[in-house]
Each structure stands twice: as structure tokens, then as C-alpha cells.
């Protein structure tokens, strides 16, 4: 049974979250650092270069790394205060085993033996797939690669998936369908060189702040900015055109813009003819999407939709950028395809200053989706159900093709299967589903039904509290490896300090488990570098070809853009030059998509749209950032953001306690009354657990093509609470 072994207060007292404000010994004791380690931020997909200051083998501070070309020293508050996660009082320092009233230390050997014994016992009774592995996209390429191989060849389960399922999969699936490759089409320098930037569902200033600099550099040259978002975000505030879309109506809007572009004569017929297929179906599909026909549904006046189409048509070069705002939907893939249709129809891709990108969210959101830790993919972004791909990976691994399990369940499906009792054992690394998955009450019920759960973590996350065994792993700065940034640029993460006390590097833990699972010869790794060398070799010949990338080349060139098929190859900063795409025929594919409503529409009982997202000072489930004092001070607790017109209807004023309820559950929060959001929509950031968790409200509805949950639309009702003490 995996109920939490103690009450919340005593678990928090023992494991946090506690807040760290100062380096070890305080600011006064910091002194002159012994060295500055050039590496990258541990948080988002921008992967800003940063220097960690080390004194007496402890990380004590930060210094901008101005020579690194992507961010040139620029950082957000998370990047500046990230160093406070090191030497943190909550750090897990030894393996722990669940007891009757909490957790107790256990020797490493005993812990690892127990994992193998418990997993094998479940598999003996219920089959190999009764154990699942959940992994994460903050991991290095080396660790992501290792996790996929570990699950399939050491544990022997088909069920391996990762938290990128909540992040990148809709964009990834759409890019693969349209382009035959899943990577940002352009380097970020192309944003600064463009004439029009169209940003959809991307709170750039809070979720990828460094991209702000690229957008402003373009605007300094005269570029126009169009922003589509239900909230007036800081980047939208000064936009030339702002389209306050009703959440979940993206296909209707994009089809209407394309409808208008076609009417304006903006189609690049030569490009469409030479480099694409399927346009006539898209022409047909958008015929009924005149701006007047959709304006009520999308919530934007028709003349503004036409303005967007005119700006797009007139701009010689454009950059279309989107992120989770259009992807966290039951039609996430369709939303992205409708964006790509617009780009392809106007031939605005594959040139300097002209193209398209999804803004990857997680630290290694790009690389961690290529190395084979997805339920549907093998290393090299290969398809686990494609016989040729299976054969290539089997040959590289030196195993029979039949030894590689078939496609497994997605991360949310794994939790559903745990809830149904079909999966009974869980191994997790770098994933906090209790905070990140929709319908948190359901997720908690699922975790409580596990027969056995082992997690590798550096802090005891809310999910890890349910574990039978907790293995202390490594922070990003305690290991060496590579990540692949938002641009598709492979970067070098350097070890600043070794893991403290008994904590170990994640890959060492996984390797040692693999050995105990009887797969020693397949996991003969003595360094993370050795894992990278195998990853390179296995990726050779795939779309995501890393075989020409070496750590030395990364250092020399400040990053190498994949694909990079041989050591003499310079890497590929810009894709699709000359209209060459990655499908076998070299053509990009249009996909006709029709608008369909969200899974849960508002009604009389739940009349308000809830959308969720992030704040600049927190990252994802807050496992790290809710432990960093200066970041928590900036935004200590979630509030529900609502327009004054809605607040007046609810008889709520700014700061009032309110109860927000959906069909799944309710949360009590303070109201934040601001005129910077649509009056029919409220917003709650999702970084918090338990009684403040936005995901107590969200709906367990998934995109059928990618499995991404619909975090961006749910129906709620709101009532003012009578007394402050109820919050």
C-alpha cells in the first residue's frame, strides 16, 4: 500500500518544502569563489548559459555567462536564484525506506536489492508489463537514453513514458506529421531578423523570458508583433495586435486567418506546388471559416482576425511561435497543424528570419523526447512500432528485435492503469504526477493503490511521499552530460560539485539497478560520457542524428544543432532550407483540420472557463522552486485571476477568498481581480500541490493523437467564501 506514511505536517517538518534564502553560511561568509563553472540553467528549455560559483566544493552563487551566444548573460529570476537548491536543508542524502510512521534510512545495497526483488515478484505474478517506469524531460540526454533502455531491456516492461507527455508531445506529433521531423525549424537568431512575429498561447515573458529579447530586437528593426492569448500577458501588452481568444478555439481562429490569407491572395503557390502536398484539402476545409462565421465562437471581432491576416500576408518574413497555450488541449495536435498550415500555405519557412518554432518547455524538452524514453519511441526519435526502426536499434544494442517491447501506455494512461490495478509497480525519476497531472484526486487514489513504488529524487516531492523506497539522486549541477535546447542546439552540462553525502548520480543508480536486474553487459557504463558515446552511435542514420556531435565540438562551437551526421558536419541550425522536408518525398504535408469544441464546455452549473499556466518565479510542479525563498517571496501562493466584470457578477473584490469548483473537486484561493484577462475566463497557476492545486479542477481528457491532457480548458463555478480563515 502506498498511502503516505505520515501526516502532512510531519512529512513537511522532515522533508520540506523549507525555504532557502542564502548560500551556505550566509551571504557574509560567501567570500571569493574557488571557481566559476560554465554550464546551463536547470530549469526551462531556453537553457541559458550561466556560471555557478563554487567555494569549498559547494555551490554558493551565480555569475552571468556573457559569452554564451543564446542568452549573452541574460537570465530570469529562476536562473539567478537556482543555486539555492544546492546545499538545501531538504536535500535527500541517503536512501530511505517507508516505515509505519514515515521514512527511515536504509543502506544502498539493501535498497537496490529490495527494488529488484519487489519488481520481479510483481512481474512474476502479473506479467512483465505490470511494472511501469516514469521519467522526465529535465534529465540530460544521457539519462533520458538510459531510462528508455533500462525500462525495456533491464526491467523488461513496455510501459515507459515521461513528463514531456504533459508538455511537448502535441507539438512533436504535429511536427512529425507535417515535416517528418520534430524540432524547432529555425534558430532563435531568426526571430530577431524577422518582420512579423505571431505568438500563440505562449506567455513568453514568464515562461521563456529570454525569448523576449529576440522579439524586441526584431521590433527595434520595425517588426510587428501579434499575440493570441486569453490573458493580456506582459509580452502582449505592447503588441501591435492582440487577439484575446476564448480558450480552446485555436483551430477556428487559425482556419479563419488562413481563409482570409487565401482571399487576400497570400498563398505562395510556387512553394505549395514544389514543396508540399495536401493543400487542396486544406483550402476546402477553411472555406467555411470566414472571420464573421467564427467571431462569436473564438471571441474576437472579425475585423481583428482580418487585421491579423493582412499583417501576415504583407510581411515578407514571419516567425510563428507557439507553446503550451495551444498544445494543452484535446485537439493539441490539430491546433499545431492549423498553425503549420498557415506557415506552409504562405511558404514562410526555411529561410533566414522566416520560419516556425514551438517553444519547448522543459530543460531538456527537446533532447529528452528523442532518446527513447517515450512509450512510442526508441532512441533517435524512432518509432517503436516501425519494423525497420526496431531492427536498427536492436542491432545497435546487440539484442534480438523481439527483446524490445512494443508500444506502451502514455504517462496519464499509466496512472489510469495503476488506478484500475493493471499496473502494480512503479519506478520513477524526475516526475511529480501528483502535482502535474490533471484531476489530482484521481492521481492520489492511483498512487495509493500501488503494490510497490520506488522513486529517485533529490527532494521528497509530493508524489515521492507515496514511495516505498526513495533513492537520493543528483541535482543537475551534480552530474555531467548534454541537453538539447529549444533551438535544437546540443549543449554541455558541466558538473559543478559531486552529489552530497550518500546521494548518487542518477545514471549510476539506474546502471546499478540494471546490473541487479541481470542486464550487466548491456549497461557497462563507467561515465555519463560513455552513455553519450553509445547514444551517438545508436542515433546514427535516424532523423535525430547525433552521431557527429562530440563533447569537444559542443564546447568549441558553444553548442551543435542536430542533425549532425558526421564529425566533419557543422550541424544544422536552420531546417527546411530550399523547401526540403524530412518525409521520404521531401515534401511537407498539409493536414485539413476542422474545429471541434473542448472536452468540457461551460454550462449553467459550471459557467466559467478555467485555464491554467505558470508564473515567472516558479517552475512546473515547484519541487525545486517552492524551496527557494526569494522565488517564493515573489509569488507565494496561487490566486485565481479574474476580470472585474466577472468579479462584480460574483460579488467578489480583489483579495477576497473564493472557492473554485469543477466536477472533479474544489480549491479555496484568494481572488486576483485584474482587467488583463477575458471576462469569461479565470486563470490559476499550477505549481502548487494539495488544497491549492489547480489540477484538482482540471479534466482527465486527452488528445487522441498525442495523449496530452487538456490543462487549458475546464468548466468551473466560483463562489465567494464568507470568512478569510476558511482559506
Amino acid at each position, binding site marked *: 500500500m502506498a498511502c503516505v506514511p505520515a501526516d502532512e505536517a510531519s512529512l513537511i517538518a522532515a522533508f520540506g518544502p523549507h525555504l532557502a534564502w542564502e548560500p551556505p553560511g550566509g551571504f557574509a561568509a560567501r567570500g571569493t569563489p574557488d571557481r566559476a563553472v560554465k554550464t546551463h540553467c536547470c530549469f526551462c528549455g531556453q537553457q541559458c548559459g550561466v556560471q555557478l560559483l563554487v567555494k569549498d566544493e559547494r555551490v554558493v552563487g551565480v555569475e552571468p555567462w556573457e559569452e554564451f551566444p543564446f542568452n549573452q548573460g*541574460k537570465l530570469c529570476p529562476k536562473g539567478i536564484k537556482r543555486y539555492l537548491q544546492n546545499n538545501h536543508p531538504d536535500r535527500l542524502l541517503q536512501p530511505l525506506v517507508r516505515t509505519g510512521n514515515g521514512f527511515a534510512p536504509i543502506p544502498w545495497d539493501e535498497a537496490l536489492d529490495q527494488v529488484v526483488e519487489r519488481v520481479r515478484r510483481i512481474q512474476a505474478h502479473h506479467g512483465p508489463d505490470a511494472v511501469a517506469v516514469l521519467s522526465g524531460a529535465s534529465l540530460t540526454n544521457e539519462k533520458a537514453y538510459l531510462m528508455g533502455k533500462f525500462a525495456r531491456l533491464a526491467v523488461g516492461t513496455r510501459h515507459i513514458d515521461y513528463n514531456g507527455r504533459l508538455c511537448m508531445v502535441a507539438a512533436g506529433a504535429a511536427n512529425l506529421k507535417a515535416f517528418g521531423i520534430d524540432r524547432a525549424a529555425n534558430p532563435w537568431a531568426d526571430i530577431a531578423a524577422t518582420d512579423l512575429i505571431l505568438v500563440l498561447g505562449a506567455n513568453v515573458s514568464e515562461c521563456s523570458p529570454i525569448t523576449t*529579447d529576440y522579439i524586441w530586437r526584431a521590433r527595434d528593426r520595425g517588426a510587428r508583433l501579434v499575440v493570441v492569448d486569453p490573458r493580456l500577458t506582459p509580452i502582449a501588452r505592447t503588441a501591435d495586435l492582440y487577439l484575446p481568444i476564448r480558450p480552446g478555439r485555436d483551430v477556428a481562429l487559425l482556419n479563419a486567418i488562413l481563409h482570409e490569407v487565401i482571399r487576400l491572395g497570400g498563398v505562395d503557390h510556387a512553394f505549395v506546388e514544389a514543396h508540399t502536398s495536401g493543400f487542396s484539402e486544406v483550402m476546402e476545409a477553411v472555406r467555411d471559416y470566414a472571420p464573421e462565421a467564427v467571431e462569436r465562437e473564438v471571441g474576437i471581432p472579425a475585423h481583428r482576425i482580418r487585421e491579423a491576416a493582412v499583417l501576415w500576408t504583407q510581411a515578407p518574413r514571419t516567425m510563428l511561435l507557439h507553446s503550451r497555450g495551444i498544445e494543452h488541449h484535446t485537439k493539441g495536435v490539430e491546433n499545431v497543424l492549423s498553425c503549420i498550415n498557415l506557415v506552409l500555405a504562405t511558404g514562410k519557412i526555411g529561410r533566414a528570419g522566416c520560419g516556425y518554432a514551438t517553444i519547448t518547455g522543459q530543460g531538456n524538452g527537446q533532447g529528452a523526447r528523442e532518446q527513447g524514453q517515450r512509450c512510442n519511441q526508441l532512441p533517435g526519435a524512432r518509432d517503436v512500432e516501425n519494423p525497420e526502426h526496431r531492427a536498427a536499434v536492436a542491432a545497435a544494442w546487440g539484442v534480438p528485435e523481439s527483446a524490445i517491447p512494443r508500444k506502451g501506455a502514455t504517462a496519464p494512461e499509466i496512472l489510469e492503469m495503476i488506478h484500475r490495478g493493471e499496473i502494480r509497480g512503479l519506478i520513477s525519476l524526475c516526475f511529480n504526477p501528483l502535482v502535474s497531472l490533471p484531476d489530482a484526486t484521481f492521481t492520489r487514489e492511483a498512487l495509493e493503490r500501488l503494490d510497490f513504488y520506488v522513486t529517485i529524487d533529490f527532494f521528497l516531492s509530493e508524489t515521492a511521499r507515496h514511495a516505498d523506497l526513495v533513492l537520493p539522486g543528483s541535482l543537475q549541477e551534480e552530474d555531467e552530460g548534454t541537453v538539447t535546447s529549444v533551438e535544437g542546439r546540443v549543449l554541455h552540462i558541466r558538473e559543478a560539485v559531486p552529489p552530497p553525502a550518500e546521494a548518487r548520480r542518477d545514471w549510476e543508480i539506474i546502471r546499478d539497478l540494471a546490473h541487479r536486474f541481470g542486464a550487466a553487459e548491456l549497461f557497462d557504463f563507467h561515465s555519463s560520457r560513455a552513455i553519450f558515446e553509445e547514444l551517438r552511435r545508436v542515433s546514427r542514420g535516424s532523423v535525430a542524428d547525433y552521431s557527429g556531435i562530440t563533447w569537444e565540438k559542443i564546447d568549441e562551437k558553444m553548442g551543435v544543432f542536430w542533425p549532425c551526421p558526421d564529425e566533419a558536419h557543422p550541424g544544422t541550425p536552420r531546417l527546411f532550407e530550399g523547401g526540403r522536408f524530412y518525409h521520404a518525398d521531401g515534401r511537407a504535408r498539409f493536414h485539413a483540420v476542422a474545429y471541434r469544441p473542448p472536452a468540457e464546455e461551460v454550462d449553467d452549473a459550471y459557467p466559467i472557463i478555467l485555464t491554467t499556466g505558470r508564473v515567472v518565479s516558479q517552475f512546473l510542479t515547484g519541487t525545486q522552486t517552492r524551496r527557494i525563498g526569494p522565488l517564493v517571496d515573489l509569488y507565494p501562493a496561487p490566486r485565481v485571476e479574474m476580470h472585474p466584470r466577472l468579479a462584480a457578477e460574483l460579488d467578489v473584490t480583489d483579495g477576497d477568498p473564493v472557492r473554485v469548483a469543477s466536477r472533479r473537486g474544489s480549491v479555496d484561493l484568494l481572488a486576483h481581480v485584474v482587467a488583463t484577462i477575458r471576462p469569461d475566463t479565470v486563470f490559476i497557476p499550477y505549481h502548487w500541490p494539495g488544497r491549492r492545486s489547480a489540477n484538482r479542477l482540471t479534466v482527465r481528457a486527452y488528445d487522441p493523437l498525442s495523449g496530452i491532457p487538456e490543462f487549458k480548458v475546464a468548466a468551473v463555478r466560483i463562489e465567494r467564501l464568507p470568512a478569510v480563515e476558511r482559506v
Partner: protein
Amino acid sequence: MIGTLFVDPSRCIGCTACVEACSECPGHGGESMIHLDWLERASSVQTAPTVCMHCTEPACAAVCPADAIKIDPEGIVLSALAERCIGCGNCALACPFGVPIIHEAQALMRKCDLCYDRTSVGRKPMCATVCPSGALFYGTQEEVADLRRSRPQSHFVFGGETVHTRNHLMVPLSVGTVTLEPDATVSRSTAEQQLEEALC
């Protein structure tokens, strides 16, 4: 030669990177010398960073009874000398921009000194190094004129007084002298007006 800081609130995204970076500077002990304000959050996401503008005739230094605020030959108005400062707060009252921070317990004023330890050795100040929007830009008049479509302004009219500063505020090309009005409100941006058109 020490450069100039150009402040452009129109670009500010309120991320607080400047504030957090300033707090990491040696000697600051976790305290930031930058003020970041939400101007009118109920109606706008407009934010603005306030750093010391380094007035050419600084009121803070003029009113200091302890002569604790020194001006370096390049015009940098330094933070109060700890051994002289009595924490009386005259400087904070006199400053037209609201920059000095008074620590009553320590009887000490602290303020932005344009990262003297960095800028005096040819480096950029911490805040302008990290600012992801370019709202804080450090360089020369020529550099900023070359990069931006706005204009640096260093004369500010407060009531009957004109203040000249070493650092500059970036203003639209159409704006001449900057006149500060105590009861001014934030004007609405195009986007803010477009949000009002949302069909619900």
C-alpha cells in the same frame, strides 16, 4: 570610462531578474537596490524598474547632514559611507525618484551605485547584464541610438524643478521633456483596448 544605463519601462516584463541579480552583487547581502513596481495592476501588467539615475546635482548628497554621499569623478553617486551615515533618511525624502533605502536599525542608507565594482573595471552592471527584455540597457548614447527606435532623455521636470541625470530614460521619439505629475495614470496600450473588444 563608465557607461550609461538606459531605462526603458515600456519593454519591462516584470520578471524581477534585475532585482534578484542585484541582490547577488557582492556586499549587497541578498538585498536589492532596485525597485520594481507594478504601476496599476488592477488594469495593466505594466511594470517599471527604478534604479538610481545618478543626478548631476544629486539632491540626496546635497541634503545629507553627514556628508556621507560621495560623487566619483565620473558622476557616479555612491551609496552612503557606512562610517558617516546616520540613517536620518533625508536623502530618501529628497530623492525625486525614490531610490535610497533606509535601514533604521543599522542607521544606514543603501542605494544603487551603478555596480561601481563592475562598471569601474569595464564591465556591465549586474541588472543590465541579466535583463531579458532590454528594459535596462548599459552602453553609450551612440550604441542605444543605433539599436533603438526610442530616444534617451535625461531631463525631468518635477513641479518647478528640473533634474538632470547621468542615466537616461528611453522615451518615444515624440516625447520632449519628461514632466512628472503626481496624479498621473497609466495610459492604456493598444492591446489593452483590444482586450475590451473580446466577445464573451
